């Protein structure tokens, strides 16, 4: 450093000379500024959300609730479900004469079916004799490995072991069923119940007449030509679905036999809680994503940088990603214990329109396209995710416009209650258009969650109503976010 230079080159008290700083400045200035793509900050925004203890507290509480829910199923229901599933895997899931014949060949005898044990079958089908010489096995809990049991060689079968193949009427049919240790149903009882419920089943859809339901719905909208036209189209499509499913024999699928309704109701209840949790989390996560800078006092700093207000884009993206991630985590908290308890191999491949799955025990469960039970549960979860993302988008709109996290949470809650009240009142008063318009949003879709992808009665004027409303909601809420961002860009940030 030259000491002959003017005072501006004097060494600062810190010991760093201004010349040093000038050199650094020139070095930095020489490099051109990078093009700014705000979405590159999405990862940083995600980390900010992930660092908030409140987020993890909510996720943990909800996951715990889900785990407890998934585990609270009567043991006998599990036993019925898993026995039916094992039978399906072994001898097929389409009820009828052939199925009944093969089921009759399963002779539990003195052997209790249990985890990893074997229900062996004698060739002596005419005498209906029991299986000789196979020792009784210990009935173990589903979580235990079969390796430790002291039974026959067939003990090598684990709970999810592949069943042996049926050969012909003279060969033994091996069934491995995962039965909870606390089930009070014996193997004989399980077999007896399954035999009783599958004996003489017919294709119930062949005799199902959707006309009375159609006529009842048309009566509800009589006098309204547009509503009448919509309902006619819907029930014409419904009738075509009944015809199609009759031809495919979907009603003949075993599913979980008598446990079908109970287990699917259980799943419906679990996912109902799940949707409430994830929608609440969506509001929280998006509110935090967009409002955290205000609470930390960094908003003025960040909004005056070159990126500035465009930072809302990565914040919204981070909020959506965080919402989807939380959703998947909470789904896992349901699905993982469910799969540990329930043997779904045979059940989930059955048609969801099986006669053993009904709408409130009264009418067949007819979906708008062919779905197995597993596929139905998957698309149900997929639609739930889309609805949850709608809540996140709605929160983003409110946050950008109102810029007060508490007010946003309150408004979101009020909006939900308003929709519930409006739709409920419209239904009670027999005002279908009010219900349809008032329910044309994610809350309205959630109110119909018990029967998604079915005809939905007077609650839906068209087929795929819940899907269409969700898709439209995603679109108009996305448009709302874009408009809200434009408004935010012109808003005073006090």
């Amino acid at each position: 450093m030259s000491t002959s230079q003017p005072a501006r080159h004097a060494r600062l008290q810190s010991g760093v000379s201004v010349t040093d700083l000038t050199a650094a400045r020139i070095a930095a200035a020489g490099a051109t500024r990078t093009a700014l793509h705000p979405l590159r900050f999405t990862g940083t925004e995600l980390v900010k959300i992930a660092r908030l203890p409140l987020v993890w507290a909510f996720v943990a509480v909800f996951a715990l609730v889900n785990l407890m829910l998934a585990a609270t199923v009567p043991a006998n229901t599990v036993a019925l479900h898993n026995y039916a599933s094992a039978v399906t895997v072994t001898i097929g899931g389409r009820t009828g004469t052939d199925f009944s014949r093969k089921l009759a060949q399963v002779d539990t005898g003195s052997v209790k079916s249990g985890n990893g044990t074997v229900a062996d079958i004698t060739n002596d089908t005419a005498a209906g004799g029991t299986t000789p010489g196979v020792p009784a096995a210990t009935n173990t809990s589903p979580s235990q490995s079969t390796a430790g049991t002291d039974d026959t060689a067939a003990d090598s079968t684990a709970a999810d072991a592949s069943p042996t193949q049926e050969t012909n009427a003279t060969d033994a049919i091996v069934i491995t069923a995962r039965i909870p240790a606390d089930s009070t149903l014996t193997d004989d009882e399980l077999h007896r119940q399954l035999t009783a419920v599958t004996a003489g089943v017919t294709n119930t859809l062949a005799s199902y007449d959707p006309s009375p339901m159609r006529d009842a719905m048309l009566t509800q909208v009589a006098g309204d030509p547009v509503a009448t036209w919509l309902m006619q189209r819907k029930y014409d499509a419904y009738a075509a679905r009944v015809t199609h499913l009759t031809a495919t024999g979907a009603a003949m699928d075993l599913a979980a036999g008598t446990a079908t309704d109970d287990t699917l109701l259980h799943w419906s209840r679990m996912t109902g809680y799940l949707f409430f949790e994830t929608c609440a989390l969506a509001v929280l996560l998006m509110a935090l994503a967009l409002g955290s800078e205000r609470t930390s006092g960094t908003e003025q700093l960040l909004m005056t940088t070159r990126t500035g207000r465009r930072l809302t884009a990565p914040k919204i993206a981070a909020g959506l990603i965080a919402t989807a991630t939380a959703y998947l985590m909470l789904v896992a908290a349901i699905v993982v214990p469910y799969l540990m308890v329930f043997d779904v191999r045979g059940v989930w491949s059955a048609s969801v329109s099986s006669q053993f799955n009904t709408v409130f025990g009264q009418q067949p469960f007819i979906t708008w396209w062919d779905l197995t039970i597993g596929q139905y549960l998957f698309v149900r979860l997929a639609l739930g995710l889309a609805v949850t993302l709608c809540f996140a988008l709605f929160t983003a709109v409110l946050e950008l416009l109102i810029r007060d996290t508490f007010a946003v949470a309150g408004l979101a809650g009020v909006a939900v209650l308003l929709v519930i009240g409006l739709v409920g009142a419209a239904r009670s008063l027999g005002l279908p258009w009010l219900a349809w318009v008032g329910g044309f949003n994610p809350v309205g879709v959630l109110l119909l969650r018990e029967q998604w992808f079915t005809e939905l009665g007077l609650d839906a004027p068209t087929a795929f109503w819940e899907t269409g409303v969700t898709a439209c909601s995603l679109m108009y809420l996305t448009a709302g976010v874009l408009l809200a961002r434009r408004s935010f860009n012109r808003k005073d940030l006090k």
Partner: protein
Amino acid sequence: MLTVDNVSKKLSGKTILHDINLEFDHGVYGLLAPNGAGKTTLMKLMTTLLFPDTGAIRLDGEDITALGERYRGQVGYLPQDFGYYPNYTPRQFLRYIAALQGMPRAGLDERINTLLDMVGLADSANKRMRTFSGGMIQRVGIAQALVHDPRILILDEPTAGLDPKERVRFRNIIHSFAANRIVILSTHIVSDLETIAGHIVMLRDGTVFANAAPADICKSMEGKIYEVPADMPLHFGQRLLSEVQYGGVTRLRIYSPEPIAGASSLPAPGIVPTGPVAVAPNLEDAFLVIYGG
């Protein structure tokens, strides 16, 4: 040049600024006014946090709102209430701000090291800011305003929380940067402005009351500032500004629109004056006279 053309602003129905006209060229500009006079509002208008109700703010003739990113990339801002991320270290924080400013990574670490050394935080560069004192946080704030080498520095109460040594360091930093840059700062510490500001803008009732060099502002008070004995009664029009201590003797510094008869000039250092003495006005005197003591 940054110009404020006929800018007015209302907030919550109250007029904060009315028909403000200012020009800022290279150098240090001090915004001097009491709380609530509109300093922060004016700064927020210049940083695009707020939008003028009427008028416009222009950089080299172009409206800063229309310039958008091109303007903000040239501005370094330190807000009055500076927030931070407690889990971040200063180095992480400066990297983040630099990324938001579109700074290339090449040479960035060297620049951050230089800045942290300049504000006296080199030893704390990798410590989480939740452990920092208010003064240390403020220094991080100063560093982040400089990280992208802005053409315009807008600092709202930058010396708040700084001890005297740190304030001296800060003044030196500002001196070095202001040669060919615009620095606009607001502070209640009048002495800071006296030493570093080449230009003072005083706001009153939402308008520009004065806009001149400190010496010129003080010149308008010449012959009107006196030190008088504590027991001397004040006459009509005279106002008490402050008290002055000479060892155990208290004297009063007053403003008198009319000359005081018998007033002498300041005696030699070490001698305590007895009667009224005419003294040279300073910026604090001007502040107290204009805004009321």
